[in-house]
């Protein structure tokens, strides 16, 4: 139960999320990768809270969950709207805005 291990796990999850956002092309999958990054941050907060013996990190995790839920609502609304207009959720197809 060494908190440092959890911090390392959080860093790995964060990296997986980042790489996922950069290489995946489906908006839903990209969005899930962002959620993974937020949850990695949550895990880091909780692990650091354990390490430092303060409760702040655990309280912050709750706030982050609420914010992430709001982000899901807004994000899915936008992705569904775009999907309905274009019949595609691929970020590569979203290329009308160019020089």
């Amino acid at each position, binding site marked *: 139960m060494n908190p440092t291990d959890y*911090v390392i796990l*959080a860093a790995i999850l*964060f990296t997986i*999320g980042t790489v996922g*956002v950069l290489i995946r092309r489906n*908006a839903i999958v*990209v*969005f899930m990768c*962002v959620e993974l*990054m*937020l949850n*990695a*941050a949550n895990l*880091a*907060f909780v*692990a*650091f*809270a*354990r*390490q*430092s*013996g*303060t*409760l*702040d*990190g655990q309280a*912050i995790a709750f*706030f*982050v969950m609420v*914010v992430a839920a*709001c*982000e899901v609502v*807004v*994000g899915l*609304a*936008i*992705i569904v*709207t*775009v999907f*309905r*207009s*274009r019949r595609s959720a691929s*970020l590569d197809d*979203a290329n*009308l*805005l160019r*020089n």
Partner: protein
Amino acid sequence: MSLVALATPIVAPTIEYARIAPVLIVLGAALLGVLIEAFVSRPLRRGAQLFVTFIALAVAFWAVVRLHGTSTLAVQGAVAIDGPTLFLQGSVLLLSLVAALLMAEREVDPAGDAFAARASALPGSNEEREFTAMGWTQTEVWPLFLFSVGGMLLFPAANDLLTMFVALEVLSLPLYLLAGMARRRRLLSQEAALKYFVLGAFSSAFFLFGAALLYGFAGTVQFGGIASALSSRAGQTGLVLGGTGLIAVGLLFKVGAAPFHQWTPDVYQGSPTPITAFMAAGTKVAAFGALLRVFYVALGGIRWDWRPMMWTIAILTMVVGVVMALTQQDIKRMLAYSSVAHAGFLLTGVIAVSQRGLGGSMFYLLTYGFTVIGAFAVVSLVRDSAGEATHLSQWAGLGKRSPLLAGIFTVFLLAMAGIPLTSGFAGKFAIFASAVASGDGPLVVVAVLASAAAAFFYIRVIVLMFFSEPAQDGPVVVVPSAFTTIALAVCVAVTVVLGVMPQPVLNLVDQASVFVR
């Protein structure tokens, strides 16, 4: 060890409601707006929403003025009410009032205001045509706008990383939606919303992980605690530098600094123009306020570690903004890249880490906000049958068609270029002087060269408007209602007055530029 922490009784926090009144008024009005959507009949909604919005912004501004001279922490140290907070909150509220005037305009488009009759109707469908014919408007834009303003008020005031993260999201989430609600060119608008959302969520995840690392180092997320941990303990530089870098990514994304600026041109081009004006001005003020507070108050002690990074980013931002703006053919994209360049100029104030740097940045933010809102207000008035005529070639000879509007636009372009007797010159002078005083001479040389190069593309537009022949089937300049007229008049007045006699505001900024710690 955590059992000890769990055993301590939970003490109810004290909340100084009067000190955070501006934020509470605006967020309360936003909730009222949601209730109006639910309970007021459709024909009355627009009037009710306009009433609530303008009253709330004006009352919140009055509350900010009432608080002047306050310099204290509030809400258990989560929020700092000090000079920079109050000045930036006042700026955000004034800029929001002007942007709200643009949003209320519905004379320039024969179909109604700038927003889709119904954002959920498919673009080009019969349903959409029906809603448009019935004269519906998406009045939900008003509560969304107020939520975003509330976030902008909290963002520069936040004194811990959690409050700052929540404010960042409250500011951003409504803007993602507003970006996708344009009445014309809806596919572009929805695409702008998608890009803004994906990149915005990505960057806020970076901010949050950076906050976690700094919490891991300091054991607290309050800026004062982080600063004292930095000064008392050396070591664990991995956590500190990693946290600093990741937080910087999140905030630099919001201000649109290179290499995190890619969303700016697309979102500025695709969004409804009043919303573009609002976010170009408001987000920049709020995000630079937050950036200044984090890097001055929490991370000021390790400035020798982050200044090289900021130097690089500032230079890159100025160069990318200017070079890309030179190549644009669309007026909104050109203004977007110009805002990237301005973010670079503003970063020189962050790098200065001095009271003058802070004051110069605050003054620059106020002047740039009014100028950019005015510029986008002009863009919304030059139209053809398909909506706004944003291609630069369509602006040829505008000065012959409408000398007044072209003259007004010239004032804004000269201010952005930083020509003397406009507010842009006073702002640039204040911020560059502070950077020189802090020993950043080489950076200022780059910034001045970049401004000189930037003047080229602003003046190119002026030449295009006044010295080329108008096309036969060119766009027309629409006569707006009182809303846009007042907004334009205010923006021109501020741009000229702050250029001719900036001293009163500079004095105000001087007194206000001390962070409470």
